[in-house]
């Protein structure tokens, strides 16, 4: 294909571009614009400058959600990756049944967030019933409930990526270390960990952005209860738009801030990955 084939643009690109513009490009630009206006439908917007952005902090919902989300992201990124890495180590020792174990550990990842939320609501409420409380009794329960759910869902996924990373380690390096008498711990620290560093980067950022954007699980498990204290950022934005906790303009302004945070995480990831490629090559 070369330049004279420009006439094929309408066939090859236009359908996708049209759908992409309707679903993403136009709503994205409109979204940025509307975050500076007050409106009920998209067509009656009135310019209000930065007022939406300052109204975000009129009540504590957004700050609460931000704090809750950051705590959740920290705890789940650490727990998910520690469990996933050690399970990957166990599953790369060539024991029988490795494939079966991998199949089982990965499965929860495929189940949708709404279904996952109700599964864990049943189980956690069943446990808490013995103590005479429910999941929505205190935000602490909701928090750890979400962490447990996230671990159950994400460990298998991250484990699979770590397994791929560990299996990519050249076997002669391992054998040489064993012949030289390195202890299993030394092998782990001096060979496995440095050589799977790229997998760590991928997994850390994947868990980080997935945890940050969590919505379905949050909605199904606690729906923010008690009194919106377990609402994460995505759910708080949804509530601002649709549950009458504010105006649509404020919701859109919150969404812009949310976007900036998520994009910043992705940008840092890009820099980290590129940086490493630069030093190793």
């Amino acid at each position: 294909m070369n330049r004279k084939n420009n006439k094929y643009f309408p066939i090859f690109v236009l359908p996708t571009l049209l759908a992409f513009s309707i679903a993403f490009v136009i709503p994205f630009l409109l979204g940025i614009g509307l975050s500076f206006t007050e409106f009920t439908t998209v067509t009656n917007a009135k310019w209000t400058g930065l007022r939406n952005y300052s109204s975000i902090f009129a009540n504590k919902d957004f700050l609460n959600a931000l704090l809750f989300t950051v705590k959740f992201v920290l705890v789940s990124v650490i727990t998910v990756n520690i469990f996933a890495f050690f399970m990957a180590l166990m599953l790369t020792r060539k024991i029988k049944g490795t494939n079966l174990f991998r199949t089982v550990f990965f499965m929860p990842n495929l189940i949708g967030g709404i279904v996952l939320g109700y599964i864990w609501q049943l189980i956690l409420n069943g446990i808490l019933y013995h103590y005479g409380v429910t999941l929505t009794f205190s935000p602490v329960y909701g928090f750890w409930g979400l962490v447990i759910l996230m671990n159950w869902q994400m460990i298998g996924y991250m484990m699979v990526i770590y397994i791929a990373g560990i299996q990519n380690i050249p076997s002669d390096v391992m054998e040489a270390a064993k012949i030289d008498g390195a202890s299993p711990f030394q092998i782990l620290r001096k060979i496995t960990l440095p050589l799977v560093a790229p997998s760590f980067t991928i997994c850390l950022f994947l868990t980080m952005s997935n945890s940050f954007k969590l919505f379905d699980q949050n909605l199904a498990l606690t729906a923010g209860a008690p009194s919106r204290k377990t609402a994460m950022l995505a759910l708080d934005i949804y509530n601002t738009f649709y549950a009458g906790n504010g105006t649509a303009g404020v919701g859109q302004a919150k969404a812009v801030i949310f976007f900036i945070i998520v994009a910043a995480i992705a940008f840092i990831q890009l820099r980290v990955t590129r940086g490493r490629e630069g030093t190793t090559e």
Partner: protein
Amino acid sequence: MKMKQTAGFGNIVLTAFLTALSIIFLLPIFIVVVNSFKGKFYISEKPFVLPTAKTFVNFDNYVNGISKIGFLHAAGWSFYITICSVVVILIFASMTAWYITRVKNKFNTTLYYVFAFSMVVPFQMVMFTMTKVANILHLDNPLGIILIYLGFGSGLSVFLFSGFVRSIPIELEEAAMIDGCSPLSTYGRVILPVLKPISVTVGILNSMWIWNDYLLPSLLIGTEYRTIPIAIQYLKGGYGSIDMGAMMAMLVLAIIPIVVFYLVCQRYIIEGVIAGSVKG
């Protein structure tokens, strides 16, 4: 000799530990299945008790739940929307990716970066405005949502396809062109077959996402057409009282298609997920 014995013993311990861990991983699903056969008042408080003669209700919860939320309709819509969207995405995203990778100009390069950029933007950023735009254009129906899914899915899909197209030797398509193939037939006869491995990845990633998607269809078509996640969320109702029996049964029915799909194409799913994760 002694080494081997300890290694053997270590492996037994490891296998036992992993078996225990597998049971813990499967337990939540098992508990839901067990409770789906219990009367609705015996679930919330004692989920860890097996059904007894008194609490066992056979398939009542299933019959109840299916009629209550119109599960069969929901399953129909879920299958329809997922399959159609994935097919549409595979066709159009691969065509676009091939074109913008091979025809180098400023517009196409920019377009590629906008597609890549869209992967970073969280759904909440566009959810309100997208819903309004779709309403104005009358895309708030099962047919329209397929177009919306093509739009949202094209970011990741074009990105993955483009990466793959770059690895195809250009001589392949040049030879086809010299033999008199039009770009369209070159795409259909030469490129499309070569794209098979990446198409499997793109197809799996998109079907998992669309099948499980809750928020987008609930905002766009949820009041009239329910997919499975919407139907389950609907069961919760607005009054705080959930029919736990129906809920358990519907959770089981929602999980079954996923488990079947997973067991049938497990290898592709795991490989696809790895390929999709390395996109950064």
